[in-house]
Structure formats: structure tokens, C-alpha cells
């Protein structure tokens, strides 16, 4: 089972909905949209030969320059039996940060989605309990977005003897 086979299979199944195939360091990477993501994940999970039955990771990314698709949700799946990994990306617009939840397929997606929500504000529709997980609940912004940069280490207008410049 090669990346080529998987890619071809997905293209025949999903056609235009899967695109931007890449293979950085041998890891098949593709992009889809939020209408198809759950069906794609389910297809991969239940596929007879692929059997991507393990959700390794789920996280978000913020690309402010990508107008129209500023936020990305990145899924890493792993087919343990074939020992093949696959990376699936979904890009969302800043104005409509909704994506269906993957908790229906893997309970482990629960906290990963909560973490992604916590840091990026991406809303996972259908998630059983979409609240912040690592940050305090009173927090009113999403800290991993690029509009909240860390302070420049060299700035000098904020000198505090103990807690930094």
C-alpha cells in the first residue's frame, strides 16, 4: 500500500474535494473541505485495506495571510496495520470557524478538539462539551492566533526587575 494508491483511491472517491496532495518526508498530505472531512475520515477509518484506525493528532494552525482560509485544522491519521500515516488538512475562513466534530469517530478527538478550540477558537459542531481545557474559562481571546504575538525579547519599555523586560 503506497501513498500513490491511497491518493488515487481518494481522488476516485472524492474527486475535486480532495486536493493539494503533497508528500513531505514521505507523509501523504492532502487537503479537503469541511463538508467532506468527517465522511473522509470515516472512509479512511473503515476502509478495508487502508484501515486508518488511529487518530494520532488533531490540531489547528493560523495562517493570517491566507485570506479566505485563515485557519487550518490538521488531522494525523495512522494505519497501524499498514504502518502508514496520512495528514489531512481542512482550511476554514476566519468568519465561519465551524467544522464538524470527529468525536463521533474517535472519542480521543474530544480533548484535542477542545484544545484546538481553546487556542484557536475553532468551533467543532456536535462536540459534546466544547469548553476551554488548558486555559481559564474566563479568557476572552484565543491565544495561539497570530495576532497575539509574544513580546519582543529586546523591548525595553516594560522593565520589571523580576519578571522581565
Amino acid at each position, binding site marked *: 500500500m503506497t501513498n500513490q494508491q491511497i491518493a488515487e483511491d481518494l481522488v476516485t472517491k472524492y474527486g475535486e474535494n480532495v486536493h493539494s496532495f503533497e508528500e*513531505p*518526508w514521505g*507523509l501523504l*498530505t492532502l487537503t479537503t473541505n469541511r463538508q467532506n472531512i468527517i465522511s473522509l475520515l470515516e472512509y479512511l477509518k473503515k476502509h478495508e485495506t487502508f484501515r486508518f*484506525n*488511529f*487518530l*494520532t*493528532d488533531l*490540531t489547528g*494552525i*493560523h495562517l493570517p495571510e491566507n485570506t479566505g482560509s485563515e485557519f487550518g485544522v*490538521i488531522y*494525523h491519521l495512522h494505519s*497501524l496495520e499498514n*504502518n502508514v*500515516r496520512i*495528514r489531512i488538512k481542512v482550511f476554514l475562513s476566519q468568519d465561519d470557524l465551524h467544522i464538524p466534530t470527529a468525536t463521533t469517530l*474517535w*472519542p*480521543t478527538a*474530544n*480533548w*484535542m478538539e477542545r*484544545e484546538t478550540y481553546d*487556542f484557536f477558537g475553532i468551533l467543532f459542531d456536535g462536540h459534546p462539551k466544547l469548553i*476551554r*481545557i*488548558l*486555559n*481559564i474559562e474566563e479568557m476572552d481571546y484565543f*491565544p*495561539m492566533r497570530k495576532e497575539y*504575538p*509574544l513580546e519582543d*525579547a529586546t523591548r525595553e519599555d516594560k522593565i520589571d526587575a523580576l519578571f522581565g523586560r
Partner: protein
Amino acid sequence: MEDLLIPKNTSDALALNRPIVEDTEFTTLNLGPTHPATHGIFQNILKMDGEKIVSGEQTIGYIHRAFEKIAERRPFYQITTLTDRMNYCSSPINNMGWHMTVEKLLGVTVPKRAQYIRVIMMELARIADHIICNSILGVDTGAYSGFLYVFQEREKIYEIYEEMCGARLTTNMGRIGGMERDLSPTAIAKIKDLVYNSLPKVLAEFEKLFNRNRIFVDRIVNVGPITGERALEYGFTGPNLRAAGVDYDVRVMEPYSSYEDFEFDIPVGHNGDTYDRFMVRNQEMWESMKIIRQALENLPEGPYYANENHYYLPPKHDVYKNMEALIYHFKIVMGEIDAPAGEVYHAVEGGNGELGFYLVSDGGRAPYRLHFRRPSFIYYQAYPEMCKGVSISDAIVIMSSLNVIAGELDA
């Protein structure tokens, strides 16, 4: 009162599915954030019927330190210090995993000797990690002495760290492109003494103290069992998944750092209960020792760092004499050497499971986005399901055997 006499037969796997009538009055018990059994700071809010747990909910994030955010401003070599603080019981594994991720991105090949040294350090770290988990399981069930017997060995491992990198807990060991220094003769002697001499003896004694001790066995057999399928759905990796019978080990499936050179077995359990987790960890310590012995015996000669002057600091004496070296020294320290753009996922077998680094680089001096796949964070979700219907004693034993490290949980 009869509630007291429940867990009638918690050793019954069916106990998980025992229906609970909702008309009883439940009590809420806050297990943590500073409960002696949480070994770190996280909270479990348990709804209890007598001593039986009806449902639970976790609150985490008490020591969240925004590593992923901080990493977006730090040059690659400084992020090592962040990884130290994730699973602080086995920080060399985190360090090495991070270095390997960056090396993958940069396309650096590390010489064989450095890879072997890394394997030795990672396996030592794994032993230290498993020692903590298993001996603390003993403490949580009330047997304190075994804990201190094996902790002396962990102390020896820490002395090896000291010899190698100068610190004990937050090691900051290794550099991008190799190790920061070679194995010293003292370190080799200490490692040899550990894996040939003292640790096998102490570990055998530890196993004699616990493995067939009926009190201990009764406490942990069939406590918190999880099937392989359910464990996979919950994203279990590492010893906890192997205890459930799935022999998934990153070292074997996707060998990194020359793991393909070593002969070792993957211990797997039977039904994923606490006893299996305990035994798998114990057995893994033996396997780790096996790996270290092989690595020591076949330790190749040669450099301990890649000849990549763009990423690996030049020797100090060159810095004084050689203009080029001085420039590289400054550029590396200032973090002014840009990494190629790209996205990398690299996984290593951490103490608790697959420790993944998802690194997106936009070609700058720091990661554009860095995500840590922290095994504790992922499998700790399963805790409420695992402790449903059991007594509080079992809940603590399950938590202890899952080896949830607060630093890794919260990043």
C-alpha cells in the same frame, strides 16, 4: 450502609456496566488538585455513590505554560528547554525527539555514534520513567519500601545524566546535529555498572516483592481494564496500549535513531488492566537494559555530532582562531540561520507513548507552528470511563498506573 459493602466484586469486568439507579444521593469528591495521589496538579471531580464512582470529570491546565506559543518565538535550539519540562520524568527522550524533528526538517544526518548515544540516553530515560510509574503504583497501594529500592537506581541514572549534560531533571541534553559531548569514560562505567550489575538485581528484587504478592495482585488485577480497540479509539499509545494487547511501538514501527539495529521484544499484556500495565512497564525495563547493553557493545567509533557547521556550534578553540567559525558561532547562537520551509511530523516512543512533534516552518528562525502530541494528554481522557463503577481505591490505582505526568498533560 450496604453501599459500603459494594464494590461487591469489582474484579468483575462487568462492574463497568453495572447500572446505577439515579435515585440515590450522590456525593461529590474533589480528587485534587493537590491530592497525594495525583502526583502533579490536576483535578478529578468524582461523583460517588458511597465509595463507588458514578462518574468523573477532569479539570486540567493548572500548570499550562503555553509551550506552543513560546516556541513560536524561540530559535530551534532553545525549544529543547521547553521539551525538558513536558514529561519531566524522561526529559532526554523529549530532547532527543525534538532534535530529531529539527534534524529531519533540516535534512541533517547524525553519525552513528551519536545515534547510539541517543539510544542509550533515551532508554535510560525510559527506565527512569517506568521506575517512577511502577514504584509509585506501589506507594499508592501502600508499599513504600520497593519504591525507595528502585529509586536508588533512578538516582544512578540521574548521575549519568549529570555526567552527560550537567543536570538531573531538566536535562537539555543533546544538540541539533548530535550530542553536545561524547560519552565520558566515567559515564560509560556508570552505565555499565547500572545495566550489568545493579539494576538487574534490584529490579529482580522489586519484581519478587510485587509480581506474585497476592495483596498487590488483588489490588490491581482487573482494575481499570480496557480493550485494545477501545484503547486505540482513545488514542492510547506506549505501555498503556501495549498492556491492552496491541504491540504498537514507534521504535519498531518507524525506527528512528538506529533502533532498527537492536534486538528487543515488545512486551504486551492481556486485557489492559492495571496489572498488565505494571507488568508491561516492568518488562520494558528489562528490554531497555537489553538495548543499552547492545548499544554499549556495538558503540561505533567516530564523531558524536554531524559535520554541519550551519547548525552545530563549532569547537570553542576554533571560535577564537577561525573567522568563519566565529561567524557561525554568532549566527547559530543568535538563531539567525533560517530553517527550510516545510512541515514535519516526527514521533518517538516516549515514556508514556507516542510523543509527536508537528512542526511547521515558514522558513524563518523559529517554528511557525509547533504542536506537541503529548501522550498523557490524549489518553488521560479515558480516565472517567476506566474508573466508572469502581471504588476510590481503584480509581487511584488506575490513575497511578496510567502514569499521567502533569507537565506533559498541560504543556
